[in-house]
């Protein structure tokens, strides 16, 4: 079954896109997209980078550590932004916390 509902994203969460939300580079329009039921989402560059790190194993804290190191930016600010972005995705139903079988 799909992951839990009403996910509250925290530093300890280990989120992943569910099977039905596919992150893909759209060659025609030269943008990243998330394909979901009856929706196409247009994540910005940062969101793409975060989502590429969200594999269901890394925690949100670890994702933020990596980005903070990469961009030499304050970790707390990054953590806040990452949580907000992932929570928005979770509220739309496009984030889960359980590693699902791949199609």
């Amino acid at each position, binding site marked *: *079954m*799909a992951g839990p*509902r*009403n*996910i509250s994203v925290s530093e300890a969460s280990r989120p992943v896109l*569910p*099977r*039905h939300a*596919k992150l*893909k580079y*759209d*060659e*025609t*329009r030269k*943008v990243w*997209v998330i*394909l979901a*039921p*009856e*929706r*196409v*989402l*247009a*994540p*910005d560059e940062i*969101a793409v980078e975060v989502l590429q790190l969200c594999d269901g194993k890394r925690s949100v804290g670890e994702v933020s550590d990596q980005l903070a190191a990469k961009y030499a930016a304050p970790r707390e600010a990054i953590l806040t932004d990452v949580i907000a*972005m992932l929570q*928005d*995705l*979770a*509220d*739309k*139903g496009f984030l889960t916390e359980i590693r*699902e*079988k791949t*199609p």
Partner: protein
Amino acid sequence: MSDVPLVIPPDASDSLAVLEKQRSTAETFGIPLAVLLEITHRCPLQCPYCSNPVELDRAGKELTTDEWKKVLSELAEIGVLQVHFSGGEPTARKDLVELVKHASDVDLYTNLITSAVLLTREKLGELADAGLCHVQISFQGIEEGLADRVAGYKGGHRKKLEVAKWTRELDLPLTVNAVMHRQNLHQLPDIIQRSVDLDADRLEVANVQYYGWALKNRAALMPTVAQLDECTRTVEEARERLKGRLTIDYVVPDYYALRPKKCMGGWGRQFFNISPAGKVLPCHAAESITGLDFLSVRSNHSIAWIWQNSEAFNRYRGTGWMKEPCKSCEFREIDFGGCRCQAFALTGDAANTDPACALSPLHETIFKQAEAEAEGETNRFLYRNFASGTLESENGG
């Protein structure tokens, strides 16, 4: 994050611009993100509001498996990201698994829009294995008495519930599609709860749009203003309560609005569908407009060429075709004059303002007529079939 809804859009949002930012959509018309494939008009159900044209394509006219595969490859190549397998009832085609597999192979995101009554658990499993991404099941009501009566199909409701369960067991996301009208609007709160119980991700509360079959059945379907207000309140309350649990898309009927809907996001701007016989259409009701020549994928033109250059797509594109009051209206690029099919059906000229608009000279008359029909006692349906419809018997069914 921007979010472009692809619901077959009576009222599409225009955030497509996000994905088209390097170009103005007023100048060029980018290939739509999603395409509706009506792979057959055959369907065991007989819903009186079916969105298919009154003149249905018979089985002999349908594209072959190879023709559909070629269409899928071509769509992927020109930049379409999602396809909706719809109908009629798409599972009535024996090659559906093969088509879904092919779509997955060319990296298209696949949705199945189904009545579910022909599915077995085995078949659904095969579709999931073929890469199907999402299942949408239509429901006609909350209990089998009314639901089976609306669908004109005994045992349908029970089967739908079963297939919805299998869908989630197979870990496929589920959308419940509930088409609402006067005779079932009172069940909306229960339908919302049932969607949660079925572990659906999404619910489409789609009020009937009145063209084709639904126009023939308008007197039996038109809700009252009070029902509609209640419906909107129910949806708004549920959206808030179920945030993060169930996404609810809401399509309102436009007869009672002052402004018309931006039908299809504007003719030929962000949507097309392909009919069972292979015609490339600006909307699934477009063939109801006479005098337009819709080209087929069987013609010697590519799909991209038909989208960009065909006369039918360009006829009502943009604002150049408009007459007054649309022509000088400040909302002309907001709603593009509403729905061309509705304008044609109700006024005889698709270039007229959609009578759903308060600026249409016919608006008042049509509003009054709808109101009167909504208060009326005509509940008998004209069922949808290949024989121009069958009137429901006096005692139902």
